[in-house]
């Protein structure tokens, strides 16, 4: 950020006259918008993906009809514009706010949730250079920011002034908080191996082909760590097997019941953005991030900087597919089972992996 | 406004400290008092870190701030448990009602 400002200042454009601070503001706004749109777009894609995959899993077609008049695109078919339609629907839909609810909170809650997820992207390594702010405490920052979402969930639950949403909010908050612990611990395993919190350091540690990926190091331990991390982050995103709070049968849409229209879209969007975040986060940590699986096999062709974002996104999509897959196959966990897995299964195993890796590294 | 120096941070922390204190002093609800306390602690942390930045090189200040955060967390947990117990006991958390220790 600092270098950018310097560059602009001495670029004799009309902008250089502005004070550093003004420039900083401009850049802030700029980056924010960029990310918001990128995330939004990806989310829409994933919504569509999810609808199609879940359909095919359940041996049905999923959305096929919705299409647009745009010449090229219309012949893709397969209802590619479905999410667009949804998005437009939500945008246009009347935004109902329960009368006794706390208007302002009702408004803020979704945005807090959304910001938390989007902010995490600023650290994600799409390529060696392609990272917004190459923070030294990258991984730790992600954990910190994601914990914001808890607040958002609680406020949403509370602001909609109805028992179910409150309980849903509370329950999901509890779930997010309790799953934060195993995910935090597991991250520790990787950080121990790499010795640094910067994403790029972690990724570079895994350069050199699929065999160097962390998932395969210290054989069983890192794999367990990956699984724990996958499940924990899934639970944090209130997805699939852990999506009790939104379980339709009991708590309708959980904390989001009273939301409709644009705010609900925001929720929906942040959920999928969260999925995408998880994908990138896990691939960076375990699957070698932007390094190509082939390593120096094809003369390091695939390792060129250009391929780096492709690899990381591919891996992310794979993880997302895995998540969706899980969602539509596994039954929902009961609340006590939910808590049980978190405290009695994931956390102990996380400890085991930490100790294991720790000991292993000593010898 | 002159360049942001140490004094700015000190003023900021003083201000936050004062606001936290005000919350503690004036708020009726126990939880808000707890919030006030958290704010005071953060104000103190700002001081620590400011001095660790401006006054000496190694990170003693920051370490200390870290420990403050840890203890604050523990403190908040216990405080909250107590507040909830008060609530269970007296059906309300307003501090002015919890004056059984009155002289």
């Amino acid at each position: 950020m600092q270098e950018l400002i310097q560059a602009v200042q001495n670029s004799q454009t009309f902008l250089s006259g502005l004070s550093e601070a003004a420039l900083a503001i401009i850049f802030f706004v700029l980056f924010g918008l960029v990310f918001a749109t990128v995330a939004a777009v990806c989310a829409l894609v994933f919504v569509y993906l999810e609808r199609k995959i879940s359909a095919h899993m359940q041996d049905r077609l999923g959305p096929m009809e919705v299409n647009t008049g745009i010449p090229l695109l219309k012949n893709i078919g397969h209802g590619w514009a479905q999410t667009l339609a949804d998005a437009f629907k939500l945008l246009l839909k009347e935004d109902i706010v329960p009368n006794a609810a706390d208007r302002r909170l009702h408004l803020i809650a979704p945005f807090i949730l959304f910001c938390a997820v989007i902010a995490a992207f600023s650290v994600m390594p799409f390529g060696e250079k392609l990272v917004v702010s190459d923070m030294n405490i990258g991984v730790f920052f992600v954990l910190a920011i994601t914990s914001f979402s808890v607040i958002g969930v609680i406020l949403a639950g509370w602001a909609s002034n109805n028992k179910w949403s409150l309980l849903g909010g509370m329950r999901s908050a509890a779930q997010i908080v309790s799953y934060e612990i195993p995910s935090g611990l597991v991250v520790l395993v990787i950080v121990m191996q790499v010795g640094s919190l910067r994403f790029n350091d972690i990724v570079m540690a895994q350069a050199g082909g699929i065999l160097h990926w962390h998932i395969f190091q210290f054989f069983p331990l890192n794999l367990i760590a990956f699984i724990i991390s996958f499940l924990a982050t899934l639970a944090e995103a209130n997805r699939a097997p852990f999506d009790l709070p939104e379980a339709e049968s009991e708590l309708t849409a959980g904390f989001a019941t009273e939301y409709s229209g644009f705010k609900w879209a925001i929720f929906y969007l942040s959920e999928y953005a969260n999925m995408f975040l998880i994908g990138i986060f896990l691939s960076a940590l375990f699957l070698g991030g932007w390094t190509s699986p082939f390593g120096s096999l094809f003369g390091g062709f695939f390792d060129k900087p250009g391929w780096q974002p492709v690899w990381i996104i591919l891996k992310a999509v794979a993880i997302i597919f895995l998540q969706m897959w899980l969602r539509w196959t596994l039954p929902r966990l009961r609340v006590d089972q939910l808590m049980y897995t978190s405290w009695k299964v994931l956390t102990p195993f996380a400890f085991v992996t930490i100790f294991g890796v720790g000991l292993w590294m000593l010898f | 406004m002159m360049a942001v120096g140490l004094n700015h941070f000190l003023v900021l922390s003083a201000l936050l400290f004062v606001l936290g204190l005000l919350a503690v002093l004036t708020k009726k609800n126990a939880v808000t008092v707890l919030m006030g306390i958290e704010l005071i602690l953060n104000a103190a942390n700002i001081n620590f870190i400011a001095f660790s930045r401006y006054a000496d090189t190694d990170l003693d200040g920051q370490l200390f701030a870290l420990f403050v955060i840890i203890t604050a967390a523990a403190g908040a947990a216990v405080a909250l448990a107590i507040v909830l117990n008060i609530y269970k006991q007296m059906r309300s958390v307003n501090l002015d009602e919890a004056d059984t220790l009155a002289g």
Partner: protein
Amino acid sequence: MSYFDLTFYVFAIGAVVSAGMMVFSRNLIYCAVGLLFALASIAGIYVLLGADFLAATQLLVYVGGILALLLFGIMLSVKFTGVELRTGTLQMLPGLIIVAGLFLLLLRMIYRAEWAVQTPGDMLPTTTTIGKRIMTDLLIPFEIASILLLIALIGAAYMARRERS
């Protein structure tokens, strides 16, 4: 106005305003939200002061943990939902006066005292040095802190249990 000053003022004002909101607002939740933004902006200020690790811990612990806790506290300690959460204030006037007096004193102190100020070095990543310092010099406090947290955990759990049963 340097970029640095700007961010400082942004965060400072954010913190003060939200702290003010916390103090003066009637609605409990608004207090909580006020506190939330205050803590977030304080995290920002930490970053400005080169304490990046601390900023992250601040966010993680305060915002993720304590604030969530407080919110839970608020919700659990309300007789029945739905009613506007009013929290009055006590002895506001005297409080204000005393607090203002204190603030003036603090200011006087700040400006009178000659702080042994050094020119700040550049912002180095602090995590490694903190990690090293904790594991070497401050091992014992660190262990004690862990025990403290354990105790707090058990204590809170115990009280909460009794509270529920």
